[in-house]
Structure formats: structure tokens, C-alpha cells
């Protein structure tokens, strides 16, 4: 199983029946494929809908129905549309239970950098700043390193998306909880050594109480 699949499957286990969830562009989008069939999870797309359904069948795309990545999507029964002010009211107002998004860097304080590499990549923050500040639970879904370089830092070096808002970091190596006293490895991939994880993590990591990560 590749890293992205491991991560997406593990994040999906965080979702509960009735949750309103926003999945960021890229890796987080894959989470939708692994949501249990026996629970109702409502996916929000910040461009203005709740009830995001699967990708439309080829030829049935509707130019007026896209997600926040600009891709064609569908709407599930019971879903609805709203404007951008309402959409971010729902986001900022703590009505979103979980937001899942990627990271350039995430740190020991739970701060996240995900929207700009000054002088190199300036796409803009889009809705990420509001999502990270507003959602009840913030899950960062990211590969543990970027080409071997740790993404989980002592302190972020890039401009922040939000300060001290991340609750959980899910990588292909394990699951890390952000707590008052720093980062805690709470689950470890059975095939990855603790040494590997510690070496791939710049931030100090509490490793005194972890379980085996469910990988299936």
C-alpha cells in the first residue's frame, strides 16, 4: 500500500456518524474513498455546498457544480448550496467537525505552514486559514518527510497558515497528537521502526505510549 493510501485510510477512521467534514485538495480528497458505509459523513466544499458526492460519470459533468479545487463533482441527496459568506460562516463558526489538509510544515506547537514558499511558490491561502482556525478538529494528512527532509518541525520556518490549531498529524509512519506539552506518537505503523520515525521528525516526540497503527 502506498503512503497516500495508508494516510487516507487512517484519517477516514477519525470520522464519526453525522460529522461535517472538509477535505482539502490533493491527498485529503482521497479520504472520501475510505469512509465507512454505515455512517453518514457530510462533506463540505468551501466554494458553497454540503453533501459532496462522488466524481460524475464522464459526459455528465455540470459546469455549475465544482469543488474547491475547481473539479466537477456531484451532490448527494440532502445536500444544499450556499454563498461564500455562509460557507465561511459555517467554517469559522465551528460548525465543521473536522478539516483535513496537507502541510508544507507542521510543528511541535501545532502550527501549520501550507500556503506559501516565499519567492518560489505563492499560490495564496484560499480557504485554508479559515478552515484551520474554524474547524473543531484539525487533521494534517501528510507524508512524513518531503524527499527525506522532515516536515514535522520544532518550529515552522515558512509563513504560517495558523498558529497552534493542529490537533492530529497522520503520516504513513504513524499518528501524532498535538498536546500542551508537545507532540505525542500515539500510533506507529507496524513495519516502521521507532528509530526511523524519530530520525524523520525534527520536533521532539513523546513516544512512551503508542499503539500499533491499523493498516488495512
Amino acid at each position, binding site marked *: 500500500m502506498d503512503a497516500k493510501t495508508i494516510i487516507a485510510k487512517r484519517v477516514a477512521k477519525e470520522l464519526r456518524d453525522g460529522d461535517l467534514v472538509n477535505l482539502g485538495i490533493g491527498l485529503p480528497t482521497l479520504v472520501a474513498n475510505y469512509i465507512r458505509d454505515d455512517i453518514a459523513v457530510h462533506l463540505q466544499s468551501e*466554494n458553497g455546498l454540503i453533501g459532496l458526492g462522488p466524481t460524475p460519470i464522464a459526459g455528465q459533468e455540470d*459546469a455549475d*457544480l465544482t469543488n474547491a479545487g475547481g473539479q466537477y463533482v456531484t451532490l448527494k441527496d440532502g445536500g444544499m448550496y450556499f454563498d461564500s*459568506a455562509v460557507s465561511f460562516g459555517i*467554517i469559522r463558526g465551528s460548525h465543521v467537525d473536522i478539516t483535513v489538509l496537507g502541510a508544507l510544515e507542521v510543528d511541535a506547537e501545532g502550527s501549520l505552514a501550507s500556503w506559501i514558499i516565499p519567492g518560489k511558490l505563492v499560490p495564496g491561502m*484560499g480557504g485554508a486559514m479559515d478552515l484551520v482556525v474554524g474547524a473543531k478538529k484539525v487533521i494534517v494528512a501528510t507524508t512524513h518527510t518531503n524527499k527525506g527532509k522532515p516536515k514535522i518541525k520544532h518550529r515552522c520556518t515558512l509563513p504560517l497558515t495558523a498558529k497552534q490549531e493542529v490537533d492530529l498529524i497522520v503520516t504513513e509512519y504513524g499518528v501524532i497528537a498535538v498536546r500542551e506539552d508537545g507532540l505525542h506518537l500515539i500510533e506507529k505503523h507496524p513495519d516502521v521502526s521507532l528509530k526511523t520515525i524519530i530520525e524523520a521528525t525534527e520536533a521532539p516526540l513523546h513516544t512512551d505510549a503508542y499503539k500499533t497503527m491499523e493498516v488495512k
Partner: protein
Amino acid sequence: MDKHLDKKTFQTMIKPGSTIMVGGFMTCGTPEILIDWLVEAKIGNLTIICNDAGYENQGVGKLIANNLVARLVASHIGLNPEAGRRMGEGSLTVELVPQGTLAEQIRAYGAGLGGVLTPTGVGTIVETGKDVITIDGVKYLLEKAMGADFALIEAREADPYGNLVYAKTARNFNPIMASAAKTVIARVKDVRAEALDPEVVITPHVLVDYVVEGDEDGR
């Protein structure tokens, strides 16, 4: 009250140097034909307020590619490399604003508020130069209301009064922009013969100054 607007009047009405809000989210819900009219008339030196920079040959990206935009206020420009290039070389000023803040600033202007206090951006570079106000121990940024000379919006349908409804996620920024500009021009796919159901109107006719009808949306 006839709200019909033709191309020629439109091109005369909008002056170079205007501040223009353009609806749409990655061009979904962007009135392409109105942008084409601006491009055709070479109306430049514009300040554009839009969720994003569109694509290189779509949405407000067409204005940027034709060198008509001096300043862009948006939440991201990632899908339009040309906007990034021009920003880098300094020929386009880009002001990046968190999407929810942008929406709220526009709504605030339309609702006659001076601004709002948002937790978004606290502790980030978005905070730079802004007042930080603490309420009950929580820090907020004071984000000022944002208005424009014109709003160019797209709706699914207008009724004879100018009431508007939108199509799915093409709604996005359009209704709030309709409240925040001196002159609001709505491009609609159709103008229906009867009044819309009063329960489902999204934008009341009093906010809409002009309606451009047409099947060709330029996409």
C-alpha cells in the same frame, strides 16, 4: 423598470481605473462575456476583487493576460501561472486575503458595517499592519469592509424585476458582491417571464442595476 444593458453602454460605463468585483470561484459562476467586453474595449488599470485569478485564458485571467489589471485582491492565484509571473516581475500587485475574510469584508460593506473581527490570520503574516482586538481573551483581526465601483456577477435566472437565483456552486461570491458595489451588472442565462417565487429569491431586485441576458457565456 428596464434593466437591460447592451455591450456598447457597458463599455462606455466602465472607466479605466475602476475597482471591479467579479463573481465566480475558479471561473465557476464568472460572467465570462462581461470580461470579454472589458477585454475588447481595452478598459485597463483596473483593481479586480475576485476569489482567485482564474485560469490563464479564463475568468479574470483574461484581464490579467491582456494587461488590464493593476491590482488584484484574491484568496489564491495558484491556477494562473501568468498571474504569479506578473506578480513576481512587479507588473501586477496582488493582495492575498483569506477566502473567508474576503467574503466577510465584501458582505460587511454591503451590510453597512465598518468591518468585522475575525480570528482568521491571527499570528500569521495576514496580521501585518492590522489592528488586533482581544475580546474575552481571544484575539481577532479587525478586517475592514471592502466595496467596489462595479460588481460583475453571474446568475442562473432573473425575473422581470431583476430578482436573481443562482446555479449550484456558481453561486459563491456572486450574491455578496451584488450588495457591495455602486453599480451591479448581472449576466444571466435567462430572464423569465414571471416573477420568481418570493421564498427562493437570493438577490433582491433592488440590488441589481443592470441585467445582461444571453445563451452564449463565452466559456
